[in-house]
């Protein structure tokens, strides 16, 4: 790659310049490992759900962002989605892990798809739909992926509220009398 690699600080500055108040919180985490104490870097961002699509598009200016996975938290009133991207892979020890967190209100958990930017996001977006009950707008293929077809419609395994899987749970150790 011929492009100059930005340091994590420059990357945050550039992102903040481009998105201003849309990026609320940014912190850089460094961890040293081994005897030589080489560092790895992770970036934690909080972003507006409306601007997520644009941020992902913007990441392409640095490098083709590799979407590792989208993880999710049920925070009670909101659902948090965390997009884990990596950029600058292929450059020894300079890869940056970018975690972008967005919060969706539980009444209307809708977020636009990013499969138009990164087609490989489809699997993880399908998983979020069935596991958290998030609606991904514009997803090209909205079927279930891991759960069986006869799984109840309104049960989402990662939810902590009444839509959680509690009523589905079986204990295999249980002895029938």
């Amino acid at each position, binding site marked *: 790659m011929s492009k100059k690699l930005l340091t994590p600080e420059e990357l945050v500055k550039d992102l903040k310049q481009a998105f201003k108040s849309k990026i609320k919180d940014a912190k850089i985490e460094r961890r040293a490992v*081994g005897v*030589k104490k080489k560092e790895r870097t992770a970036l934690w961002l909080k972003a507006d759900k409306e601007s997520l699509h644009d941020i992902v598009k913007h990441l392409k200016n640095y490098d083709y962002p590799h979407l590792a996975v989208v993880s999710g938290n049920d925070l009670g009133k909101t659902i948090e989605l965390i997009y884990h991207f990596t950029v600058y892979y*292929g450059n020894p020890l300079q890869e940056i892990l970018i975690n972008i967190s967005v919060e969706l209100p539980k009444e209307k958990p809708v977020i636009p798809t990013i499969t138009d930017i990164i087609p490989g996001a489809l699997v*993880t977006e399908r998983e979020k739909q069935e596991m958290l009950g998030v609606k991904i707008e514009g997803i090209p293929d909205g079927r279930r992926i891991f759960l069986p077809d006869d799984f109840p419609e309104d049960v989402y395994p*990662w939810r902590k509220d009444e839509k959680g899987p509690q009523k589905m749970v079986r204990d295999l150790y249980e002895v029938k009398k």
Partner: protein
Amino acid sequence: MSKMSYSIPIGPIHPALKEPVMFEFEIEGERIVGVDFKVGHVHRGIEWIGTQKNPLQILPIAERICGICNISHPIAFCMATEEAAGIEVPERAQYIRTITAELERIHSHMLWAGVAAHEIGFDSVLYLTWRVREKVLDLIEYLTGNRITKAMFTVGGVRRDITEEQYPKIREALNYYKEMFNKLKHVFLDDKTVRMRSRNCGVLTKKEALELCAVGPTARASGVKKDVRVDHAYAAYGDLDIKTVTPDAVTGEAKGDVYDRIIVRLLEVAQSVDIIEQCIDNMPSGDLVTEPKPAKLLALLRKAVGEGVGRAEAPRGEVIHYVKLTGEEHPYTWKVRAPTYNNLMPWIPMLMGEQIADIPIVAASTDPCMSCTNRVTVVKKGRVDILDHEHLHKLSVEKTRRLMQ
């Protein structure tokens, strides 16, 4: 003449290895024009189970996410938890983690090489590689006490030491692999049969690999230099002299076909041997674990608040775990992503345009946590023929024979 397409469902039960997956292929003549897959036949709800247990109870479950990558998953989980709770790992423990992870890579790649040979009907090579693989299993058993699930890790370190008295046996096994390497290289890379079945078969271009987020040897064979060990320091890898393996080192260019994936995995076996040697040469002294008393460690974890991401390079690609601790007994969230998850989508461009007989080797070439196929229903003009794995395997073997003539 109008072209007629028919669909073949394959799976989900198959007799040889690994997990069930169901494919549905749209076929025109012999050519695949549409691919769809259904995964999740082995969905056990592990992430949910994890939120019902404390971090030390999760460790055995993390090991049992995958019986083959049972070092990479606990290592990623431990790193995520350590990051969330702010625990530092002693240097010696990091080196021991690296050694066990590389032993796992050798055993997994040998396993894969055997499976790949089986898929093209080359069973003598299956037996050869699996015999060679037993040597590393013996070493793993000698070092960790078990052949498969190793129970080596705990949050903040490792549970067993690798001592100086054990070095001679490690070196002996490594030398065995150094000797075998040239033989295996000859068997896989110079053999006419293997080359004919794997060259230009199941191609994944660099652009597709990037767009579909491929990981591990699948991505590297397509020329994407992505290796967590090199790019993102963890355990002892930051100290070591390692380079990302891509097939252009041997052939001059990365085509992204099955042959290239064989090259990457073979070279990685040699690389793993080298890494283990570097580790035992430079092994630092010190503690094995930050907090040796489980009760104290649990109390520490119960108080911790934070989130962390652990990434490790498993034999099949990047493993990533996300853990959120909220100061409770159990982690609030645990998200696991295995490499095959990202290597599902790349199957589609790989299989498009290939023949039915190529399905087993192409599907197996990403080293998925599922491998060969069993029951095939051919729906053709309203007539339903059931083909089983043997027929599909036979088709594959026949193609090899045909090419040999």
